[in-house]
């Protein structure tokens, strides 16, 4: 019997082989990539987003030398410790003029410190003492664009061009982080709601309804006030706010995932998975979620744009990133401090606005392109 089958099936194979060989298909990945690049808009979007990334993450290495971290050491090379027992670290910025200036991360142009070093020995231990003198603080405020400061400086003497780069870092990192959290939470909740249905579905969906009803901005204002009062480092504020944003934004993703899973669950391949006796987590995360991925990727790229907008809004309202840290929203916020800047110093706030527009447009173009590329209906 066994042999008979083999004979028969090889026959079938051999006869279909020649015709099969001259048929060559595109691999699924290549098909998606092709569809994506067929649209000019998605290419434009990709260029916009990639150039913003290069600008923010690579740009600083070219325009502004990053400050060197210098650990102060004694003559034996042991680090000098402060009163808490931590080594004393100073940031030394190397200026083009060959002067040493110890300044804050992105405060180029505001302060230039002259550093003088003295070495002395006490009881056989050599210490290096570095003394600094401040120069030129006031002169650089609201400087017009020039060779030194490509886009000029703002009302505190920060170089706007450099600040745009650092601002971009925060804006992009924060929105990626938020979107990642939203997606993880949304997939888990939506997956559970969609798969189990009934009572669990009902509870999760009602929680979603409630969260969607919450007025986001007023609550943000309240939280921000609490944060102000609780004296949290400006560095971490924005992350806390992003966690809150995640908390109120996941229902959108959860609904999307749930809706998709509800329709996928009725597909026969899911019945087949049931008939195979697969476990529930395997069915949800190995069979259902991968099939939601296309829609998820699209919604992720679209919400990246809206997260950047959200971040900018928060910073503009002075709720997000606070000085001395930069974000694009914070940079626009300067106009609320001084009417004169709004009218006469466009170079201070317009570039940040352009960056926001470019980022949001770029992400939306990519999202649209991905939607067309991944649309299963357009597939053969």
């Amino acid at each position: 019997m066994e042999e008979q089958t083999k004979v028969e099936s090889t026959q079938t194979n051999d006869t279909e082989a020649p015709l099969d060989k001259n048929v060559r298909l595109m691999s699924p990945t290549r098909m998606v990539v092709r569809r994506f690049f067929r649209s000019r808009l998605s290419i434009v979007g990709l260029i916009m987003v990639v150039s913003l990334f290069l600008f923010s993450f690579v740009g600083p290495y070219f325009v502004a030398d990053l400050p060197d971290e210098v650990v102060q050491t004694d003559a034996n090379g042991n680090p000098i410790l402060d009163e808490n027992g931590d080594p004393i670290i100073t940031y030394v910025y190397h200026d083009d003029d060959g002067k040493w200036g110890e300044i804050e991360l992105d405060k180029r142009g505001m302060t230039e410190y002259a550093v003088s070093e003295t070495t002395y020995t006490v009881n056989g231990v050599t210490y290096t003492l570095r003394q600094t003198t401040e120069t030129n603080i006031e002169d650089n405020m609201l400087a017009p664009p020039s060779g030194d400061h490509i886009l000029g400086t703002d009302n505190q003497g920060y170089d706007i061009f450099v600040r745009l780069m650092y601002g971009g870092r925060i804006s992009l990192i924060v929105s990626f982080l938020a979107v990642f959290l939203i997606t993880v939470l949304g997939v888990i909740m939506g997956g559970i709601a969609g798969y189990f249905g009934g009572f669990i579905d009902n509870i999760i969906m009602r929680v979603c309804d409630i969260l969607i009803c919450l007025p986001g901005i007023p609550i943000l204002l309240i939280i921000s006030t609490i944060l102000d009062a609780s004296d949290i480092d400006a560095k971490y504020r924005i992350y806390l706010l992003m966690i809150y944003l995640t908390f109120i934004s996941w229902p959108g993703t959860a609904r999307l995932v749930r809706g998709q899973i509800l329709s996928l669950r009725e597909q026969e391949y899911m019945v087949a998975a049931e008939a195979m006796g697969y476990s529930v987590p395997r069915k949800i995360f190995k069979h259902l979620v991968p099939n939601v991925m296309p829609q998820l990727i699209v919604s992720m790229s679209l919400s990246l744009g809206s997260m950047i907008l959200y971040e900018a809004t928060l910073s503009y309202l002075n709720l997000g990133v606070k000085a001395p840290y930069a974000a694009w929203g914070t940079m626009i916020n300067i106009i609320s401090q001084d009417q004169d800047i709004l009218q006469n110093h466009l170079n201070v706030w317009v570039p940040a606005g352009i960056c926001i527009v470019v980022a949001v447009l770029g992400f939306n173009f990519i999202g649209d392109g991905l939607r067309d590329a991944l649309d299963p209906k357009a597939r053969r």
Partner: protein
Amino acid sequence: MSKIKNANRLTGKEVRAIAKQNKKIIRKLEAYKNRKAEETEYLGHMSKPENILEIDNLHTYFFTEQGVVKAVNGVSFDIPKNTTVGVVGESGCGKSVTSMSVMRLVQGPTGQIYSGSIRFNAKLDNGETKVYDIAKMPMDDIHKIRGNQIAMIFQEPMTSLNPVFTIGQQLDEVTFINHPEATKEDAKAKSLEMLDLVGIAMPERVYDAYPHELSGGMRQRVMISMALASDPRLIIADEPTTALDVTIQAQILDLLRDLKTRIDGSIMLITHDLGIIAEMADYVVVMYAGRVIEKGPVSEIFHNPLHPYTIGLQKSKPTLSSDSDTLFNIPGNVPNPVNMPNHCYFKERCGKCIGKCSGEYPRMIEVTPNHFVACHLYGKED
């Protein structure tokens, strides 16, 4: 054993070359389709006056990213007046694309009529007849024949009716399009008459019903009545009973047979079911991989099939009367339509291959009067 050969993919370079070529051709064909043209440009002559439709060397291609799919590749057949021509073949053989080409419903921009002619003997309102070449008509003039001279019945009665309008509204609309001067009462009277014609017991009730209130069989009857409402000269029925149950299918086939005697028109019946063809058709066209491989009168095709594919198709259909234990089967699959070889497309699945089959594609030969076959087995010795 465990080593797996390459999955045989197209390279990026090839994909780009295909896309470039497609773009060029599609632009040219789209421009031709959307041009403005005088009527004289697409008037033609029938080769036989008794024909209502003549498809002559029709090529309809789909320019896909994977390459050119020659869905209809040189199809020719005629539909004489007052006959039923059955087009039979398996999925992907191009039978539906042929009918879509006649209706000019091929989905652009990928799908295009590449060459060939579709001559249709149209009868105008004033009684005179004109021969239009549908393949050459610009899209703006297609309304002259589509819907009124040629009507179509689709496979899926569930989705071919608009769910937000009543059956009556949708039927009346057909009348208003064909006779803009008709009053509401005229239209309703005509619609009820049509519903009655297709054997609907309570036309008034169906007239006011929404599509979802009707069963599949009823909906298909409504679709047929809509097709009949414009007094077409040709009805194209694309798998009209495939979505229906056997007992309902029997009803609809009975209705179509009955209508054929009552209306003055021809039917082009597209199906994959040889049983339906045997019952309904006068003349049969067998298609395989975008080409007509055999055509002839129904009794000839069923009693004296010539092409190995036609023979195999008839043998592999399980029937109630046969007694054998295993079914005959044609080995292999319907070939993928991209990059077709130059020889006979059926060669790989054919059990009767001769040396000549590796040569160029066989021409159509008339074996007995009106019975044509494209197979080297029946060629003249030369």
